[in-house]
């Protein structure tokens, strides 16, 4: 608790500085990553982030110390080499994109690990910090480094905001952009540079192995919540910032704990929450709306059964008779009956369940839709009368009043369905 207060009250100016750095870093990478996620190029970010390792090592070897300019420069160069190699191989060989990316990623990363091992053997006392680039350590960032990474993040955010319309065009409809004379290859190049930079800004805080997660996961998680690009970008940025700060805090509390894995763990938690609980697209929401729909269809079926009973001259059905009609759905049937009684669509008259006036209207509507659809299938789609029932059983719950009017119009307000049964109208007496 003490740690928590110390960290989040920002009384330590170096912590405040690091949190600020993580915030703009997270926004920048989530911003670029969301576009690359929408462009279905999520793997490219992973390839770039693994590919910057040899550049980092070479930068270190050249400088002989952990100089941020050498290291960032090296990372940019090897990230660019990997990106260029990927697109060159794609246009000059028949290899598929995922195999190219897998090859480039492992080749560069393997080479990076070789260099890292060589540096370790030299016994350079500075090299202790180099391991941080694998899994990241936000707390270990020096103020000088923060200026470099923060500055690059601001460049990314500004470029993306300036070229929002161009990048949207690139992702949504590149051909159209080319047709109106936009230099789409140049725009793609700028975007790839921003991708590389967005990996580079995270190498120290998050580490090369897991940086791709900070690029892609925020956008993917935010996509569950919204269909608007502006909201998507804001949410993705927010997710990245929350998990970035969480990871930093844990690195602060537990010494030597790398930041990257904790950023990824908290990001994954946010993604899981989105996947489960987001309205409309979340799995829980879809499950609940499906259940609601199934309950409604069962109520429709109960009303329909009672309507058919009245067609046969009965006043209603007993509870047991109704339960007998749906032998495997006892609970649902009881639920439907009590719901319909509560809503005054049914009356329970001395144990006999009958349709009320409003129940009759609703039952007629369902039966009418069922039989109209059967007639349509039979007349317009040439489907035999004994093959139309199953489809009508599903469509009767879906057809809207507009579609009903259209059906009636096409079929010229029929009186009988293909089974010669009456199509009930609102003012019919039953």
């Amino acid at each position, binding site marked *: 608790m003490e740690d928590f207060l110390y960290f989040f009250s920002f009384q330590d100016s170096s912590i405040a500085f690091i949190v600020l750095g993580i915030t703009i870093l997270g926004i920048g990478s989530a911003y670029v990553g969301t576009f690359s996620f929408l462009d279905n190029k999520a793997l490219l970010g992973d390839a770039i982030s693994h590919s910057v390792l040899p550049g980092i090592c070479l930068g270190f070897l050249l400088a002989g110390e952990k100089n941020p300019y050498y290291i960032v420069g090296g990372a940019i160069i090897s990230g660019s080499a990997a990106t260029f190699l990927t697109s060159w191989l794609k246009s000059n060989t028949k290899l598929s994109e995922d195999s190219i990316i897998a090859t480039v990623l492992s080749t560069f990363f393997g080479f990076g690990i070789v260099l890292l091992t060589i540096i370790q053997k030299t016994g350079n006392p500075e090299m202790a910090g180099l391991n941080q680039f694998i899994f990241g350590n936000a707390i270990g960032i020096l103020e000088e480094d923060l200026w470099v990474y923060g500055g690059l993040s601001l460049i990314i955010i500004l470029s993306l905001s300036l070229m929002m319309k161009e990048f949207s065009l690139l992702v*949504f*409809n590149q*051909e*159209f952009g080319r*047709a*109106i*004379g*936009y230099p789409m290859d140049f725009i793609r190049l700028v975007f790839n540079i921003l991708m590389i930079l967005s990996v580079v800004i995270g190498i120290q805080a998050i580490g090369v192995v897991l940086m791709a997660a900070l690029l892609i996961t925020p956008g993917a998680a935010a996509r569950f919540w919204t269909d608007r690009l502006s909201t998507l970008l804001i949410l993705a940025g927010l997710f990245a910032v929350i998990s970035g700060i969480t990871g930093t805090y844990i690195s602060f509390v537990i010494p030597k704990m790398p930041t990257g894995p904790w950023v990824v763990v908290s990001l994954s938690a946010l993604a899981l929450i989105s996947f489960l609980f987001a309205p409309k697209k979340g799995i829980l929401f879809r499950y609940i709306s499906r259940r609601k729909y199934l309950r409604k269809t069962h109520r429709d079926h109960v009303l329909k059964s009672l309507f058919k009973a009245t067609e046969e001259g009965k006043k209603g059905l007993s509870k047991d008779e109704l339960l007998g009609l749906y032998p495997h759905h006892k609970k649902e049937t009881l639920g439907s009956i009590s719901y319909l009684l509560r809503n005054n669509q049914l009356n329970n008259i001395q144990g006999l369940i009958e349709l009320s006036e409003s129940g009759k209207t609703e039952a007629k509507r369902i039966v009418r839709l069922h039989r109209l659809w059967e007639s349509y299938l039979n007349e317009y789609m040439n489907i035999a009368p004994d093959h139309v029932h199953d489809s009508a059983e599903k469509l009767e719950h879906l057809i809207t009043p507009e579609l009903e009017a259209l059906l009636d119009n096409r079929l010229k307000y029929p009186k009988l369905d293909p089974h010669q049964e009456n199509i009930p109208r609102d003012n019919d007496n039953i």
Partner: protein
Amino acid sequence: MIKQIENPLLEIHDLTVSYDQSPVLWNIDFSLPEGKLIGILGPNGAGKSTLIKAIMGLVEPTGGYVKIFNKDLDQVRNRISYVPQRESVDWNFPASVLDVVMMGTYGRLGLFKRPGKKEKDLAFNCLEKVGMTAFAKRQISELSGGQQQRVFIARALAQEADLYLMDEPFAGVDMATETAIFQLLQEMTKEGKTVIVVHHDIHSAMTYFEWIIMLNLHLVASGPKSDVVNEDLLRKTYGGKLNLLSKVTEIIRQQEFNPLKN
């Protein structure tokens, strides 16, 4: 039957295009008049879309050239509007109908500038012409096929061009929408604009187009509807590919490089 035009709006000279070494268009050579509703007809794989893309400079020809308004494409780009195939984009992209229509104004707007009120008004205007004003704020992922097609046409209108090239704008469109769009295109040609449409349904083509181009890897016909629509030319267009042409294509494909490239 290929009818050439004096002072044409569009001139295509000996155009040859190949994809991955398979020639898909052979020596296409025709010229088109101004202010007409023009249909490009042909079977699947006849190279109809490729022809449109070659005119728009989206595919690199291996030979020949295209002149529009007697100029090179790059000099007249903002007088040409292009409607790509509906399936060529990802409709799950988070954008509203209005966002997509506004893209039509990007050409005149240029790089780095943001669309403002003028562009927004124009986009609304174009949405009204295709009867989609009520959908302006709707997300594009929620649209039906016919509505998507109308959004694309509204975007093309927002380009305020003189020549319109449309790739299968009637694919997946219901009858009522098809009629409405055709009427809109006819109004546009009455105002002197030229509209070229890749089309698959020969029946409606007969009703609406004034000029017809028939394609089957090579150019079969180009001319006024009454001159080119006859049984002989239709058989040449739809009666399978030329046997010898397929064999030559096969030989070219088996080379280690593209021998047709200049």
